[in-house]
């Protein structure tokens, strides 16, 4: 499944990042690399973006970007 499909409170391990170029680089720079644990904290009041916890801090990203990140629950 993808990070986008995860519900608040759910955790998982990142499998792959289906992006390329600068955006993938950015995602990885922020600590989302294969094998890392992520936990969905909440969804913004208007339904997008989402807030996740990764490597001990909170990161927000849009669902559009979350949909490219493959995770294993």
């Amino acid at each position, binding site marked *: 499944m993808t990070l986008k499909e995860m519900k608040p409170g759910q955790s998982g391990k990142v499998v792959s*990042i289906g992006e390329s170029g*600068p*955006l*993938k*680089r*950015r*995602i*990885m*720079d*922020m*600590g989302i*690399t*294969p*094998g*890392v644990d992520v*936990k969905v*904290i*909440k969804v*913004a*009041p*208007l*339904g*997008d*973006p989402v*807030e996740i*916890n990764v*490597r*001990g*801090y*909170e*990161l*927000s*990203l*849009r669902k559009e*970007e979350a949909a490219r990140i493959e995770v294993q629950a």
Partner: protein
Amino acid sequence: MSYTIALAGNPNCGKTTLFNDLTGSRQRVGNWPGVTVDKKEGTYKKDKGINIMDLPGTYSLSPYSAEEIIARDYIVKEKPDAVIDIVDGTSIERNLYLTLQILETGVPTVIALNMMDEVEARGDKIGAEKLSEIFGVPVVPIVARNGKGILELMAEAVEVAKGKKTPKKLPVFDEKLQGTIDDAKKLLDDAGETDSQWKAIKLLENDENIAGQVTEELKKRVGEVAEKAYGSGADLEAAVADQRYQYIAKVVKDAVKKGTTGHVETKSDKLDKILTNRILALPIFAVVMYLLFACTNSENFLFLGINSPGIWLAGIVESIWGWLTDLVAGLVGGASPWVYSLVVDGIMEGLGAILGFIPLVLVLYILISFLEDCGYMARIAFVLDRIFRRFGLSGRSFIPLLQGFGCSVPAVMATRTLESEKDRKITTILAGFMPCGAKLPIFALFVSTLFVDSNQTLVTYSLYIFSIVVAIIVSLLLNKFVYKDGASNFIMELPQYRIPTLKSILIHGWEKVKGFAVKAGTVIFVSTILIWFLSGFNFDSFNGTNAAESEDGSVMCEMNDSFMASIGNVIAPIFKPLGFGEWRPAVGVVTGWIAKENVVVTFAQLYDEDVTDEYLEEYFAQYSSEELEELGFEDGEYDAEAAGDIYSEGVLFEGGDENALPHMKDDIKTKAAAYAYMVFNLLCMPCFAAVGAMKRELKTWKETGKAVAVQMVTAYVVALLVNVVGGLFL
């Protein structure tokens, strides 16, 4: 011996706090060439021989944003004597990612482990000695907020700078990757490139910025090395990032003892649950915005019937300035009329315009830096992103646009909080479209006199809606055609909530005010004097005709005969398609650029056949003595000398006389034309003060000119549509 020490670190790692601690008020704020990123320099307050350079906060040294390119170019090319890498101990893994990249450049480095108080409060333990042993550079635990550990940090930094200690090479990458890097490094060494180790990694990462700096031949051969080891199309970029994080995970395991495992809820998380709560987030946000607005622009602060701190301070400044102006006027009273006018109406007025804005800017900036530093600004973007993304903006654009309803100057200055340069440019343009306080008198005059039989509230209200709709359309168009290539994603850290220190907020506010007074001030001052000259002089001023004809020997003339009137005649035909192609409305547009309410003041001067002494006396005769006093007549007694000013600023500003300026109807005949005139003034270039602020934010005259051109074209096209389409219905 003098040293330059650079501060590097992630955003929100406490870098600015440390910088303020180290330099006190001895700092210079400028801009990095070509980009709107702050360049801050200062000297260490304990040793004037040490220069401190504050690099922009970045997560990485990849060429993803202007900030990252600046930080890495500075480290690699300018080669500071030492870099202090500030690591936020509460999110150590992500912070060490930048650390590894800084160490890779080979610059002498000291690591400052910041927020150690929070780390301890969480029950975590970070072994500074262990980290120092692993990385081979000094690691000093500090708490930047209260200055703990800073002396030790600086002592280590000076030591490192003196010794020019290059960090050792770390076993970050696996054998295969390191082998490939070594092969690439050898190619670079053979070609005589400097910083070969660092460039080798960057080339393997497909870093376009570095690729552009080496020869095609070299690039090709490095590509071949990568292909030999990994096959074609290999994603070395991902491998590098991945292996760095893997290495960090090992380091953290060795050096950090977590008090609890897994994700624990902090106080900040609990607060966040309320502030970004599904139901409460938007109402709380509305209250925060209301408070922000109330503290700066409101004339009815929190419904208490008193002025907001911003307006209150502005009032004090204005009355002091008024007193000073009277004093100066007394001093130059004996001089020739034009000197008197230059000093009083030109110089003092121009300086007064700048000073009047300073309290607003100060209050706004103190509040905005509080929102920014405490972490709420990131949540605003998080909550509003969904809405603003549709218009090609980010959630943070809301604050400048809201400020625009009060005054364009703080609105434009608030664009500083936007992260992307594209958003900043677009929002700066849009801020000028908002119906600021000074545009209201124009609406009041027009609606009260030219829309007598219409629903006047609706007409005024429709202008507000108009400005928002135009802003949305222009934003979409600019995104599509002008600023096409801006990164549009929303990968953003939501930092922990922290109460910022008063010191850092005050320093921040002071910096902005200083910047405004100097940069924007020059634009305001020069343009005010220019308009003063154009409105009070004509060719006869210089050949003695005026002096001979006037009673007091003044070389100045009435505005009706001035250069300004001639300019009005020349540009009037341009406005013909908009329905107001006459010289007097045209002059109104021009004088409106000093301050928008000047449109009304100018009209009262230009349509002087409608504002005769007899008319004024007759008009004010309907008021009782108390009402007259309220309008501004001393002791409630009619005074012919004061009547003109009171009529324009007390009556016309409020739309109080529906029979005012009947000759205006000869120039602006239809309702469509009247609406077009209001729309044109609403959307065209804002006042010079705002343009000065735009220049300050956009940096170059070219960008400022481009922004003003967009505003002018928008105003013209929209007003034209209003006049043509409106002409069919009204």
